[in-house]
């Protein structure tokens, strides 16, 4: 599966500016560079938002699919650029996140590094803190979540911690906004030299570690005299850190010596490169390394980490007091018991899912109708009139306004309200801390099919939007398991397909029950199909992990953070803006061309009837065979860009091909009828049976991903092969399933 070795690239060659550009930080009008580091779940993003406000920008680290945020703030005449590093447990390069953090700290050489530390989990957080202190002096520790600590009866003395670590320590509760002004002051003070931190370094490692360091230090000093953090470099080399090794071989390590340092040879390296030929100091260093490494004990790394934690324990004991209060801790525990117990865990989860679905569907109804009225009923005729006054030819008017504009308007009207409700709800659950519990509960299921527990989370995201679900798979470290999650994400029934499901369920299943139950039946149908999608996801994952994506399960370590009251209004606001922008972007980029295509094929006449009519006729045999019809198949082909326009397209094509006059605004124009029974009548008149309805629901679940998702999959995997698999496998599965259902149905019925 993975057969080609990765290529080397040279980061940090040359000056700091060049390094920064390669790390993705563009030169600008900032004069202080700050890196924000810390464990996951410490409230780092809250700190980042508090520092930079709306002046931030999210993207990716160059060459990697790791999210990156950077922003600026002004203080005391300085412009400070803040780069948010991924949350990591340490600086070893165990995962891409850790690689990114380490590379930035080492080669980006920020002016100040802010380490966000969780006051409720001080001991574990100090592991990373001590590691960062080995790399750089200019550190500010932000002791965050002090309010949480108080809640749990934990008291941490910031002054004592400051004495222990030797760097400024700022107590904060970033969610409340306390501590942030002091942080800004401290950052500028350290950057300008007003405060000179003197970090207490780990002077003593376990004896075997010290011995190994001692063997290598002279060779490092000979090859790179004046290197400020030589002991750290020695440790990294002994730990086989590939980036530092590369840096030694290529001479990039020179970039670590600050300009203007005492070492006279710094300038020489920077310009002439480093001599690593035989007999040179660098070659001697590498030989000494090979020797030392062969002789190292296999549990060298264990000892190193044990030493770090011993130090962390000692510091924590000196600065922390526990058991001050015990209020509300039990509520956390009780909640956990309830949400993860054998009997109540899963039912509550399904109930919550159904609730979220119901709120989204019910809440989106009115706004969707309003948007539809505004954009389509009101604005569309205005545009047409506008076109007429300009003297536009009929076909141009049709193409622009009946095709492109209508498709876009539809996508916005149908998509915007549900997404604007679903994603904020989802983010609220995430902020609250419930989502890791979902992965916790569902991991066993995913383990049995060879996948990763976090796929449960990406699956849930996929219920909102499959593209968002694919991006969410970044939380899965292992590439193999991530691919499984990406390929099967399509089986999460996304928001765009809910209207199709609800409508068809209402027409073909809802008519079987009394009217006042029809609403509940609709919701139940959607939940049912969604659960069927989950089953398919598990099944296909099982097949994938036994055939093309075979492999062993990787480490599953998931942190369960304490429950925290979510920041309701902030979440609503940011989520709403985010989602609205994405939907609008998608509507314009993907739906607009789709609308053009649909109008064109419906209105260009070839040999007496439109292209669409020909296509429908040509597709009909296949359609009938698998229990659908040509109209549905054609609608799905042209609606690849966006699922929302499937129903309007189907209605338009039905009318067009069936030659029914007087229904809909005109030939080749998408539309929707106001009443469900009216749609039902129209479809049944054109030969739709219950089989067609059921198969349409199945096909809607199982067909290929929408174009946004395909595009996102390609961006995340950078592989044409896997993008093709992710696109074609669901549609093949859909065709096969519909085929089998149709044959069995006909056998039983006939």
């Amino acid at each position, binding site marked *: *599966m*993975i057969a*080609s*070795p*990765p290529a*080397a690239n040279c980061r940090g060659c040359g000056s700091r500016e060049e390094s920064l550009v390669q790390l993705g930080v563009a030169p600008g009008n900032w004069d202080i560079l700050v890196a924000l580091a810390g464990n996951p779940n410490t409230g780092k993003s809250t700190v980042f938002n508090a520092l930079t406000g709306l002046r931030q920008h999210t993207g990716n680290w160059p060459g990697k699919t790791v999210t990156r945020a950077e922003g600026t703030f002004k203080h005391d005449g300085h412009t400070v650029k803040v780069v948010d590093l991924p949350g990591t*447990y*340490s600086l070893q*390069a*165990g*995962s891409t996140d850790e690689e990114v953090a380490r590379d930035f700290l080492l080669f980006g050489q920020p002016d100040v590094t802010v380490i966000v530390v969780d006051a*409720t*989990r*001080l*001991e*574990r957080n100090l592991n990373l803190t001590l590691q960062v202190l080995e790399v750089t002096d200019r550190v500010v520790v932000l002791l965050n979540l002090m309010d949480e600590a108080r809640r749990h009866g934990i008291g941490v003395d910031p002054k004592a911690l400051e004495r222990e670590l030797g760097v400024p320590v700022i107590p904060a509760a970033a969610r409340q906004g306390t501590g942030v002004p002091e942080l800004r002051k401290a950052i500028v003070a350290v950057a300008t030299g007003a405060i000179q931190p003197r970090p207490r370094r780990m002077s003593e490692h376990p004896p075997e570690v010290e011995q190994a360091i001692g063997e290598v230090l002279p060779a490092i000093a000979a090859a790179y005299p004046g290197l400020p953090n030589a002991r750290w470099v020695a440790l990294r080399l002994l730990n*086989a850190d*590939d980036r530092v*090794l590369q840096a030694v071989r290529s001479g990039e390590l020179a970039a670590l010596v600050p300009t203007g340092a005492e070492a006279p040879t710094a300038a020489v390296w920077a310009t002439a490169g480093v001599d690593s030929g035989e007999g040179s100091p660098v070659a001697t260093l590498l030989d000494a390394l090979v020797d030392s*490494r*062969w002789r190292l004990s*296999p*549990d060298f*790394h*264990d000892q190193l*980490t*044990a030493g770090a*934690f011993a130090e962390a324990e000692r510091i924590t004991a000196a600065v922390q007091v526990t058991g001050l209060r015990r209020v509300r801790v039990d509520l956390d525990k009780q909640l*956990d018991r309830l949400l*993860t117990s*054998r009997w109540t865990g*899963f039912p509550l989860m399904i109930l919550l899912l159904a609730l979220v679905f119901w709120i989204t569907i019910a809440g989106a109804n009115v706004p969707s109708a309003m948007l539809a009225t505004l954009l389509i009923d009101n604005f569309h005729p205005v545009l047409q009139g506008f076109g007429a006054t300009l003297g536009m030819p009929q076909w141009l008017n049709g193409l622009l306004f009946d095709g492109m504009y209508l498709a876009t308007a539809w996508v916005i009207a149908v998509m915007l309200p549900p997404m604007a409700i679903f994603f904020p709800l989802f983010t609220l659950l995430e902020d609250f801390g419930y989502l890791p519990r979902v*992965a*916790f509960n569902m991991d*066993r299921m995913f*383990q049995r099919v060879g996948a990763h*527990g976090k796929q449960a989370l990406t699956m849930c995201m996929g219920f909102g939007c499959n593209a968002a679900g694919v991006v969410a798979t970044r939380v899965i470290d292992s590439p*193999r*398991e991530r691919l499984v999650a990406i390929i099967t994400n399509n089986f999460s029934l996304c928001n765009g397909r809910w209207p199709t499901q609800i409508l068809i369920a209402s027409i073909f299943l809802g008519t079987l029950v009394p009217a006042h139950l029809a609403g509940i039946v609709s919701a139940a149908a959607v939940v049912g199909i969604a659960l069927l999608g989950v089953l398919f996801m598990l099944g296909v994952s099982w097949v994938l992990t036994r055939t*093309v994506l075979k*492999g*062993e*399960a*990787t*480490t*599953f*370590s*998931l*942190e*369960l953070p*304490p429950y925290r009251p979510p920041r309701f209004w902030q979440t609503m606001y940011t989520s709403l803006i985010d989602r609205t922008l994405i939907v609008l972007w998608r509507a314009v980029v993907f739906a607009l061309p789709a609308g053009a295509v649909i109008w064109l094929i419906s209105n260009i006449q070839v040999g007496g009837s439109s292209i669409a009519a020909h296509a429908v*006729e040509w597709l*009909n*045999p296949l359609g*009938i065979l698998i229990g659908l019809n040509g109209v549905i198949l054609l609608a799905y082909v042209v609606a690849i860009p966006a699922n929302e326009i499937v129903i309007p397209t189907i209605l338009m094509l039905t009318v067009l091909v*069936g030659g029914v006059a007087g229904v809909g605004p005109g030939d080749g124009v998408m539309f929707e009828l106001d009443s469900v029974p009216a749609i039902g009548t129209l479809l049944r008149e054109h*030969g739709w049976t219950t089989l067609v309805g059921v198969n349409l629901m199945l096909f809607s679940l199982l067909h290929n991903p929408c174009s946004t998702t395909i595009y996102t999959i390609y961006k995340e995997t950078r592989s044409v092969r896997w993008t093709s698999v992710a696109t074609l496998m669901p549609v093949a599965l859909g065709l096969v399933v519909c*085929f089998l259902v149709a*044959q069995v149905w006909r056998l039983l019925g*006939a």
Partner: protein
Amino acid sequence: MPEIALAVPNPLTALALFAGAAVVLALLAWPGWGLIARLRRAGDLSERVRLEDGLKHLYTLEAAAMPSSVDSLAGALGASRSRAVSIVRRLEETDLIRLETDNIVLTDEGRAYALRIVRTHRLWERYLADRTGTAPLEWHAQAERLEHGLSEDQVENLAASMGYPLYDPHGDPIPTAAGVLPPARGISLTALEVGQSARVIHVEDEPEELYRTIRRAGIHPGTLLRLEALEPTRVHLTVEGQPHVLEPLAARNLTVERVPASAAEMGVARLDSLHPGEEGVVVRLAGAVQGAQRRRLLDLGVVPGTVIRVELSSASGDPMAYRIRGAVIALRRAQADDILIRRQAHTEAA
């Protein structure tokens, strides 16, 4: 209406045709024994591949101080005698071997070439084990195929990307680019004194059956064990605290080095055996956990001396949540099984 006028195909015919098509597809595309897979495997056996495999075989025999011949070559490569003869002739033409009276000897050039192949093979095994999660029984087979396709630069990049690993997942040392190997160390398990604790440093992966047995006993490079008794037909061991019995053939496939008893405490339980509310003190991580997985656990705080408390069980019983150094971490039972602990006598009130 056009749709209704079309005839509905007979479902039975349709199903029959479908079944037929499925069978044909399976015959062609089934991974492993489908036609396409077989064709690919046949294409792998180009001349260069055969020559390199031959060199590797000769090097392995030389390292084990065993004589080599055309017949041994034919056997190792699964080729006919005539093909083996042509391989030997080609290798001699290119000065990679020398033919002596009843022995085939590698020239210096041949040895260096062979070492490069060995290096590539072992690097691939390391890569497959660490980065792709390939099953252990497949490492060797897949590396056999992959070792022939890389240029020297690509091999160097592969090594660099993994931080120049020293050993492959079986415990064999990976030669450096200059062909340097460390001095051989360790003794066979069967040569150990009874009652001595030891660390496994190499596990022979052939024959496959014995390898499977060894792995099932939880023995990997890095595992700590103690030899309890050595009988003619049975070898009694304590492997990371669990008793196991191996047949002597399997035991001979293990290379170990002695460690002091203090570093290899055997009176240990597994974290997996604790229930919610119970506590344990970490003794060490089992040798089976290596590489990035081991580092992740270490970075989370699972170091000797840490007190771990079992907090929760998930709704399906697996994974469980543990309080480690102040944070609650969920781990699968299979991973918790690799964490060796000493039970704490008392348990806090839940």
